[in-house]
């Protein structure tokens, strides 16, 4: 798993552990709260209608007809028959609310039931139920309601049935989609193997997970249903005189629109206020209940990571280095918490060199790599310190346009999952040509020729035909070859590869590793290679840096680190992986879990899990101390003697 995503996930977890109640979250949302207040007010008014000192809503008074608002005794005036509009408004709202809520409940009940059964049962049951639903959905929405009212005859109750029926498919489809997803989840199989019957699984395991979606769907449709029942009444097909709901009041008022506009404007305003308050509140409910919307998941990342540096290091004097990253710190700000995903990382690459960054998920290895070209999503991430010198330019200080020029030209990327990193709707040729023309304007035919060469370079057979293929038509290994071709499009000096083989099968992984190794020598490109696997590191990397909790704990030449690890964490990490050909080895395990990066301990972050821990490990900052050739370790009590004396 790429761990740029990991902070967000962990944050989600951390949040829900000590999460404020759903109601609190809802109340934090001003719009939703104001919606709730208005809605409550209207509901209370409607409920209290019988005890409020209002005149009889149906009492006609021809003498007082069409009084304007603020007339004496009639705050909102009177209608064409002299009835008090305020009183009719309150009673009408009562009817509209009752009808809207009942219709929602009926539609939700039957729709959800159909959706649950169809989604869970699958197969023939699903086909038959959903064909029926499709049939109902094949009618334009209101038209079916009209047809039903035409058949049953006008009337409030019939309008209610009609609106409920036409909304059943909406619920059924939504709930079915969710149920299908849940029914294939492993916990359903687990429940089955725990001896639960289908009924128990559907209503005991699946339903609790579907319930939030049912509530979201209800909260987003109830306003709509109130509008639609009002609509039928407006047409004279719903509430019949003398009974009035808001829609029929509006319908009555329409006939005298030009002479007494207030008679139609006021009930319309009431419908608007009611529906608007419900929608505001409903959006709030959705935001609280929808897991995707939590922790700002629908916030769009901007083009480049925000840089808010507290410290800007001096330019180092190493002429031979292609990339010199000094004291990088990258943080994620979520809610009130600060996640120090990367704190104080130094690393460098010489031309043509391959450096591996090894670590477990959450160690900050991907964030380090993605920080370089500003690809850490902002919000919530930002670079809070350090400098990255590439050919004498500080990547964190260059303009946005300069950064765009560098991306894909001097520095290119290969990401983890080649299916999700290629655009599904453009052909391979389109995407390759675009990578070329973004930096070197040329004719499309020329770019196509160049793209073909690139595919040949990554050993894809029949490259001309492959240009016209879409990513989903290629196998995983082929797609990753395309990604590598794209990274080579402009002869990049540095390729950042973020777990490029993790999603691939082992035989394909081996090919891709060989290919990358061969190409970097051919092209003399440096590679920053992110991985969690020491075996992969051995295959391609000249040097390696091991990360833990956002810091580099050890670095050195690959062979040196593997044969004599100095940091206890590195040692454990090597020992806990089974090695092919050594089946008898008892695996070392590291007890406990890494610290959460919003609550890092003082001193060494590994101290709690370390067998060599001593008191001094828990105080003060532990420096990365060099020893030997290109070696360094961040430990006070390292495993090897030379490191201790380094």
């Amino acid at each position, binding site marked *: 798993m790429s761990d740029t995503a990991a902070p967000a996930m962990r944050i989600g977890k951390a949040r829900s*552990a000590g999460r404020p109640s759903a109601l609190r979250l809802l109340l934090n949302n001003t719009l939703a709260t104001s919606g709730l207040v208005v809605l409550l007010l209207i509901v209370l008014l409607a409920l209290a209608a019988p005890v409020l000192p209002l005149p009889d809503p149906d009492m006609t008074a021809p003498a007082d007809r069409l009084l304007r608002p603020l007339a004496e005794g009639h705050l909102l005036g009177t209608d064409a028959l002299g009835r008090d509009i305020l009183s009719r408004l309150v009673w009408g709202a009562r009817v509209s609310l009752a009808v809207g809520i009942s219709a929602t409940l009926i539609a939700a009940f039957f729709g959800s039931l159909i959706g649950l059964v169809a989604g869970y049962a699958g197969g023939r049951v699903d086909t038959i139920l959903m064909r029926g639903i499709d049939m109902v959905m094949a009618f334009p929405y209101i038209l079916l309601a009209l047809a039903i009212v035409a058949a049953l005859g006008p009337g409030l109750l019939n309008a209610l049935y009609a609106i409920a029926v036409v909304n059943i498919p909406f619920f059924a489809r939504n709930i079915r989609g969710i149920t299908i997803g849940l029914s294939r989840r492993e916990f359903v199989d687990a429940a089955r*193997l725990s*001896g639960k019957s289908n009924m128990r699984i559907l209503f005991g395991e699946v339903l609790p997970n579907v319930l939030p979606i049912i509530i979201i769907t209800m909260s987003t449709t109830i306003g709509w249903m109130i509008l639609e029942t009002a609509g039928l009444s407006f047409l004279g097909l719903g509430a019949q005189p003398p009974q009035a709901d808001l829609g029929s009041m509006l319908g009555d008022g329409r006939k005298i629109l030009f002479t007494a506009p207030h008679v139609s404007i006021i009930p319309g305003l009431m419908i608007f206020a009611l529906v608007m308050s419900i929608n505001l509140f409903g959006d709030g409910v959705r935001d609280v209940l929808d897991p995707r919307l939590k922790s700002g998941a629908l916030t769009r990342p901007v083009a480049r990571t925000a840089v808010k540096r507290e410290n800007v290091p001096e330019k180092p004097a190493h002429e031979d280095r292609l990339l010199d990253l000094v004291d990088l710190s990258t943080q994620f700000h979520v809610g009130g918490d600060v996640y120090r995903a990367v704190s104080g990382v130094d690393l460098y690459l010489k031309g043509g060199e391959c450096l591996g960054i090894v670590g477990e998920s959450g160690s900050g290895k991907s964030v380090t790599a993605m920080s370089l070209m500003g690809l850490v999503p902002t919000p919530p991430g930002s670079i809070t310190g350090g400098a990255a010198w590439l050919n004498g330019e500080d990547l964190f200080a260059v303009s946005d346009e300069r950064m765009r020029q560098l991306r894909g030209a001097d520095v290119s990327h290969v990401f983890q999952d080649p299916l999700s990193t290629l655009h599904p709707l453009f052909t391979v040729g389109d995407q390759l040509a675009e990578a070329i023309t973004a930096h070197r304007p040329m004719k499309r035919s020329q770019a196509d020729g160049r793209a073909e060469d690139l595919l040949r370079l990554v050993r894809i057979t029949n490259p001309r035909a492959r240009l016209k293929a879409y990513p989903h038509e290629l196998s995983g290994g082929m797609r990753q070859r395309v990604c590598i071709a794209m990274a080579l499009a402009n002869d990049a000096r540095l390729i950042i590869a973020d777990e490029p083989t993790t999603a691939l099968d082992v035989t394909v*992984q081996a090919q891709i590793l060989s290919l990358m190794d061969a190409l970097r020598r051919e092209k003399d490109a440096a590679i920053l290679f992110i991985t969690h696997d020491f075996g992969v590191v051995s295959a391609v990397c000249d040097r390696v840096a091991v990360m833990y909790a956002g810091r580099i704990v050890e670095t050195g030449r690959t062979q040196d680190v593997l044969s004599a690890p100095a940091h206890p964490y590195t040692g454990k990490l090597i020992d806990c992986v089974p090695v092919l050909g050594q089946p008898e080895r008892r695996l070392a395990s590291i007890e406990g879990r890494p610290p959460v990066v919003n609550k890092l301990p003082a001193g060494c972050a590994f101290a709690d899990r370390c067998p060599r821990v001593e008191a001094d490990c828990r105080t003060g900052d532990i420096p990365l101390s060099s020893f030997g050739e290109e070696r360094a370790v961040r430990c006070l009590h390292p495993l090897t003697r030379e490191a201790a004396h380094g």
Partner: protein
Amino acid sequence: MAEPLLEIDSAERIFGGGRSLLGRKLPAVHAVQGVSLDVRKGETLGVVGESGCGKSTLARLIVGLDKPTAGTITFDGRDLVAEARRDPQRLARRVQYVFQDPVASLNPRKTIRAILEAPLRHLLALDKKARQARLKELMEAVNLAPEFLDRYPHEFSGGQAQRIGIARALAADPELIVLDEPVSALDVSVQAQVLNILDDLKQRFGLTYVFISHDLSVVESVSDRVAVMYFGRIAETGPAREIFAAPRHPYTHLLLKSAPVPGRRSLVPEDANTELPDPYDPPPGCAFHARCPRGTDRCLASHPPLEQAAGRPAHRTACYHPVEERGHA
């Protein structure tokens, strides 16, 4: 040699297929084809292969979550497929399953207590007191503190969640546990914890494992015997030591050569012509032929049967031109 506890005979599972309303043939995928295997009491059988080789389908067939379209599966002398249909709870008392994704296998809206009590209640019909005692035992067995019982799955790390998954499988005191990639979703340091617990539990409770994984080194470290699968069929099966020390099938060779090993630089060629065949349109004969350095026309003509190696009766290979020399690449 112990009696086979589980015998699989020419199992086949086809997805899709059949005919449409208009009588056209619908596409079919042979996920598992002609697979015969047995598992003896107390051993660990490792099943290894890459994605799409049918190993997970095979796992689901063994626990009765899926049914074979042909062939038989016998557990302790009884027809497992018939039992899964007639009395799934009886089967679940004896054969259990540990899932690949530890978090997805726990219902996010249930406490750990509710999840672990389900098998005790529905499979063993224990009363409240007996359940309490058993829960305590289970948590102890997988090395988790009992106060975790009243928490929800999202409060656990992947390793802890997988231990809960193991405890759930253990709850009904089964004889055979199918482990479907139990450690591949875990970080390497946690992977070792879980593998060690599994080993420990096997000794303590006399369990039999079918251990499915794509990771050769993990399979090698846990298995007594190994089956290598490719494209729905068994390519090679035999004692773990022999398979890893002297593989006979060219595919097993390729796998072993491809696995990244700390301290070894990559050796395989980087050419692209090495993809799986199209599952909807499988080639005739051996599915590995297109990638095989030893392939001949004979391999295209018919599919090679699993045959014993000379002098090694337990080691069987489905290849017309197996690698014969001892010692390996």
